[in-house]
């Protein structure tokens, strides 16, 4: 493996970025998982990250809300700024960062609580609601925006785990938007779901884009093409190419990207 970082092809910058990442390296112990990645993430748009397994796309995603902090031996270097502030700055509290940057995981992971309490959990720990009425309103709005309200409005007190897989994932999205983040990170949010549940989540992503910046890691190139405006292609820890989704899928500049999206490997 060539350890030297390669130069990214395409436009890494956007106007008024929400996230701006420069020279980001991630190490897991001795393993160099992310190599000198430079990319901006724009507001009110979806950035899809694609690439073969082990290419570092999930690792990179987890840098953005510092979830790598929880992994023993993980080390992140370089500058990542959120609205111009370095997220690794000593004054930046990781709890507040994660309130601004929500995350949805590969496998739905509702808490062992009721549907209501799952959504109310974030607002509660951040003190977003002054009274029960406000909290009810936040839960109601979040479930509506996640497209789950109609299905669960009569059973808000049932455990979150009693829902189907697709409903659980939408519950997790509702839980995330209940704290009103600026960015939502999604780590293969549909890989555990069937095509119908996947379609619902994709519709939801499209709606959420009007309010949030969204980064989605996906193994499905069709999904990347359907939901995103920009696409980044990762390969073995390098960010090979980034650009408008239309361009990437119709006219990739890098040989590796072309090979991957045409199914020559991956």
């Amino acid at each position, binding site marked *: 493996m060539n350890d030297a970082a390669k130069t990214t092809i395409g436009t890494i910058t956007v106007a008024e970025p929400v996230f701006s990442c420069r020279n980001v390296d991630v190490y897991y112990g001795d393993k160099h998982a992310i190599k000198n990645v430079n990319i901006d993430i724009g507001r009110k748009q979806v950035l899809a990250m694609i690439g073969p397994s082990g290419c570092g796309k999930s690792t990179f995603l987890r840098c953005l*809300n510092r*979830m790598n902090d*929880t992994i*023993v031996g993980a080390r992140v270097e370089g500058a990542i700024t959120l609205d111009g502030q370095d997220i690794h700055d000593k004054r930046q509290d990781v*709890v*507040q*960062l*994660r*309130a601004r940057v*929500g*995350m949805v*995981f590969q*496998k739905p*992971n*509702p*808490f*062992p*609580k009721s549907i209501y309490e799952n959504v109310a*959990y*974030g607002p509660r*720990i*951040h003190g977003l609601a002054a009274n029960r009425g406000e909290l009810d309103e936040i839960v109601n709005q979040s479930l509506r925006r996640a497209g789950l309200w109609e299905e669960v409005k009569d059973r808000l007190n049932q455990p979150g*785990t009693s829902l189907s897989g697709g409903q659980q994932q939408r519950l*997790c999205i509702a*839980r*995330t938007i209940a*704290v009103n983040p600026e960015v939502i990170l999604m780590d293969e949010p549909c890989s555990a779901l069937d095509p119908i549940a996947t379609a619902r989540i994709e519709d939801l992503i499209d709606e959420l884009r009007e309010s949030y910046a969204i980064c989605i890691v996906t193994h499905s190139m069709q999904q990347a093409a359907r939901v995103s405006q920009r696409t980044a292609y990762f390969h073995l820890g390098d960010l090979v190419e980034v650009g408008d989704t239309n361009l990437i899928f119709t006219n990739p500049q890098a040989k590796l990207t072309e090979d991957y999206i045409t199914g020559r490997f991956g």
Partner: protein
Amino acid sequence: MTPSILIIALLLLSFIAYQLGKARSLAVVGGARGIRNLHSLPGHYGLLTALWCGLPALLVVLVWVAVQDQVLIALISAQLPPEVRSLSSDQFVLFLNDLRNVVAGNIPASQVSPATAAAAGEYLRLQGIARLALTALAFALGIVAMLVVRGRIRADLRARNSVERVLEGMLFLCSLVAVLTTIGIILSVVFEATRFFGIVPAQDFLFGTKWSPQMAIRADQVGSSGAFGAVPLFAGTLLISAIAMLVAVPIGLFSAIYLAEYAPSKVRSVVKPLLEVLAGVPTVVYGFFAVTTVGPLLRTAGESMGLSVAGESALAAGLVMGIMIIPFVSSLADDMITAVPQSLRDGAYALGATRSETIKQVVLRAALPGIVGGVLLAISRAIGETMIVVMAAGLAANLTANPLEAVTTVTVQIVTLLVGDQEFDSPKTLAAFALGLVLFIVTLVLNVIALYVVRKYREQYE
């Protein structure tokens, strides 16, 4: 041959049969080259021959050993002189006792009556004949079976299937032994308890508040009527168990949380085995510790605060019992906490929950059923614990909620009722079985609930 030598000889014979069967199976297919034509491995044919050779013969020997004494006595009784046969049944038992002692060589024949000596001689003569016959029969059975099986070995004989069926049967017998023993113990306790309840009414036992099980041996002694109200014992057991759980649950749970969530792996790898060593300390050592250290310490501390603490207080026993149970609670809670999927923690962290919020509101919540199950198991252990309370809690059956006084527990009373020489038909002794039955039922119910809760929890995340 004596039966033990005979058994060894039969084992040797079976070994020979094994070799014969194995060799025969190879010979049938024309040596090792033809082994693919055999249905089973040569060893299976050997085992099959050995099992047929050894098992029936061994069974005959064992049956004879079991019934030999009764058969021989019956034979001898028929030809005893009339003066012996006219003895009363008690005296006849004594006669048989002498007879057995002479036969075993415990008493020289010159010290017993001529009739006994003659009978003993007869017994020995019959025993000699029987042994000879038994040896011949066992060997004949073994050799015949060995030859028959050897003769029937063909390439398509399904030896493996038969051998495995026999082995399966043996495994079943072993598990049966454990189950039957348990059932036997339960039945004996239930039976003796029923006898007790025939003498002392169940409501007096379960709801009476006075416990003084001393029964007079002769009718003219004072205090000849014992009191069997077990409430003070139940109360004492509860008090001590409650104190123990007050110590064990918080300390055990918090140490489990620390070990599972906070401790660096280095600390964990040292502390966790150390905690588990606590579980290996014999309870009598804890009892020691309670009597010689904790009891006096509490007493001095109590005096300095103007409280009177009994030398054998419920508090001392409960505290030490709590320490004993800590590793039990902590290792179960630790298992439950580490079984909570990392994805739940990630979900909470990603919402901006702090570590303590995540642990309190998500991890513990998910692990709660398992922890409750562990605590229930710990309670049933505390209730059944004996040695510490025997040494540290005392014998006085006080009905009190004051932990500074001496109390007694169900287990302590069972021990005191059954220590020393006992008649097995006095209510005093039978009371121990009734107490044992109560103890058994309570711990059984607790264990069943705990196992149910734990299992239910496990299903949730698999």
